[in-house]
């Protein structure tokens, strides 16, 4: 069942055509979705803050992003004198390309369960409704999110200016810290699904709500993933990277015109991709009831609705939560999320091991409980000792 059935019997021109269409559709979809995401965010925040928001360009201000994009194209493209010319130009493209590539592994439709394996038939060929289904699936997402750090980091350094540099150092420290929690929450899902391929992960969740990994992994990995993803996206309340009160605009202070637009685009595109990844990992991807006719149509509708719900949540965060202080950010990441997801990972692995090897219920969980209790108390003691030493230092100073 590994791999897209499109490539099983060799590759001919029709296959290449289907592939090209898929790439084109995904690319256009993501661009248009990003455009409306910007509008959606501005409009929703205005509603939450009792304002009207964009309402001039097009009906309900729908064309506002389009107008902004045109404006960006015609603005002067500035480059600071101290900037490193090559790297300064390279950085926005790294951000944009990684944002596009991550979306390629997300299955956006196809009916799973009930004997069908999530394929649709186009021009008489069976294929998955996703651009690519590499065997390493979800690892590609992690790889892309670690490459995306370069975009921000290099932008800040190459600007040759102090605020961008501070912003980019903050950004890379934050991204590296939260990537650990993000990765381990993903590992929990991979253990439950028994596969790395995104298509396989969705297939493993088919067959009703109780099979979704949100439920069967016990919600904790999802919460950790949501928090870590928000931090990874540099969205409020974790937007220290571009804290305008301290850093002007963070890493993109010196960017203008179309290069700034690329960063802007990448940021919103990443929000959409991350929402889609969460739907894939924890909410069964395109799973949902097929109401009438057209079996290929409904899964995509359910997928889009679920993604929309997450986009709403991200905007809601921004309108509700105040920004964290830098030490609070590091505290939350290293001292709370990572130990929590580590314990949860061990617990889930043990549960799976017990199921496969048929170990005694009481002995397994008894031993696990004792081990976890010892580990947790050691950790707590360590944290308290660290806090006390820190307080003493503060008092001495």
């Amino acid at each position, binding site marked *: 069942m*590994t791999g897209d059935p499109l490539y099983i019997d060799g590759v001919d021109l029709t296959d290449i055509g289907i592939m090209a269409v898929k790439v084109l559709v995904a690319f256009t979809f993501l661009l248009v979705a990003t455009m409306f995401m910007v509008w959606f965010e501005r409009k929703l925040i205005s509603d939450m803050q009792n304002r009207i928001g964009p309402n001039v360009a097009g009906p309900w201000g729908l064309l506002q992003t389009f107008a902004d994009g045109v404006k960006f194209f015609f603005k002067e493209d500035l480059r600071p004198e101290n900037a490193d010319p090559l790297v300064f130009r390279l950085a926005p493209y790294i951000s944009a390309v990684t944002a596009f590539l991550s979306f390629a592994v997300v299955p956006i439709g196809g009916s799973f369960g009930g004997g069908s394996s999530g394929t649709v038939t186009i021009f008489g060929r069976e294929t998955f409704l996703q651009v690519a289904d590499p065997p390493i699936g979800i690892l*590609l997402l992690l*790889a892309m999110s670690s*490459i995306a750090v370069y975009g921000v*980091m290099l932008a800040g350094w190459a600007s040759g200016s102090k605020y961008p540099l501070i912003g980019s*150092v903050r950004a890379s420290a934050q991204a*590296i810290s939260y990537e650990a929690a993000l990765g381990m929450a993903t590992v929990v899902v991979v253990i439950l699904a*028994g596969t790395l391929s995104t298509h396989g992960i969705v297939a493993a969740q088919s067959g009703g709500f109780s099979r979704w990994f949100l439920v069967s992994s016990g919600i904790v990995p999802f919460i950790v993933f949501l928090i870590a993803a928000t931090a990874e996206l540099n969205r409020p309340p974790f937007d220290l990277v571009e804290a305008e009160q301290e850093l002007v605009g963070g890493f993109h202070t010196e960017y203008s015109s179309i290069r700034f637009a690329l960063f802007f685009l990448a940021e919103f595109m990443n929000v959409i991709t991350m929402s889609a990844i969460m739907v894939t990992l924890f909410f069964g991807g395109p799973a949902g009831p097929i109401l009438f006719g057209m079996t290929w149509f409904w899964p995509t509708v359910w997928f889009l609705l679920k993604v929309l719900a997450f986009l709403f949540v991200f905007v809601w965060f921004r309108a509700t939560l105040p920004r964290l202080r830098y030490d609070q950010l590091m505290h939350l990441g290293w001292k709370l999320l990572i130990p929590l997801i580590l314990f949860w990972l061990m617990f889930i692995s043990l549960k799976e091991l017990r199921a496969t090897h048929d170990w005694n219920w009481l002995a397994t969980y008894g031993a696990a409980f004792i081990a976890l209790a010892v580990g947790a108390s050691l950790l707590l003691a360590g944290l308290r000792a660290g806090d006390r030493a820190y307080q003493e230092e503060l008092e001495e100073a």
Partner: protein
Amino acid sequence: MVDTLVFIIAAAICLTGALGVILARNPVHSALMLVMTLFGIAVQFVAQEAHFLAAVQVIVYAGAIVVLFLFVIMLLGVDRAQNLELSILPIQRWAALVFAGGSLLLLGALIVVVNEPVTGAEAVGGTASGDENVRLLARSLFSDHVYAFELTSLLLVIAVIGAVVLARKPKATQSAAVEEQGDN
């Protein structure tokens, strides 16, 4: 045909990157060239059906280690061209030349003389692809080589603790420094 083409392109990327690492004047450019080499190697892994290794290559080396390099370069402010005329030992350059030439000769001799696999060991993944590949790798790592694996992770933990201990100033000098600041 396609395999050869992929190999040639990826090898060209690797070698260009490797040359760039030593020829670039700016340390940040060198680090970026290193990323390029790592990507080339990842492509070679994919061409050999070792998808998992390719992903790990990008996540760990390009995503974490070189980011740390860049971190240090940016924070310590060594991001400008270094004076290459400076050498620490008087015979440093000659010694480097001799060793580099020797290594090149040895490598060349190996390529000419040896015409069979050097270790004779088969790849763990074999011809398996997809999830089977990862499964076999994990089984080998956590059963046959479990001691080496655990010892390596222990070594890394020791290194982390050592770094923290070295980076922390002893309490006495720290409070002295604080007092000094207070006086000024």
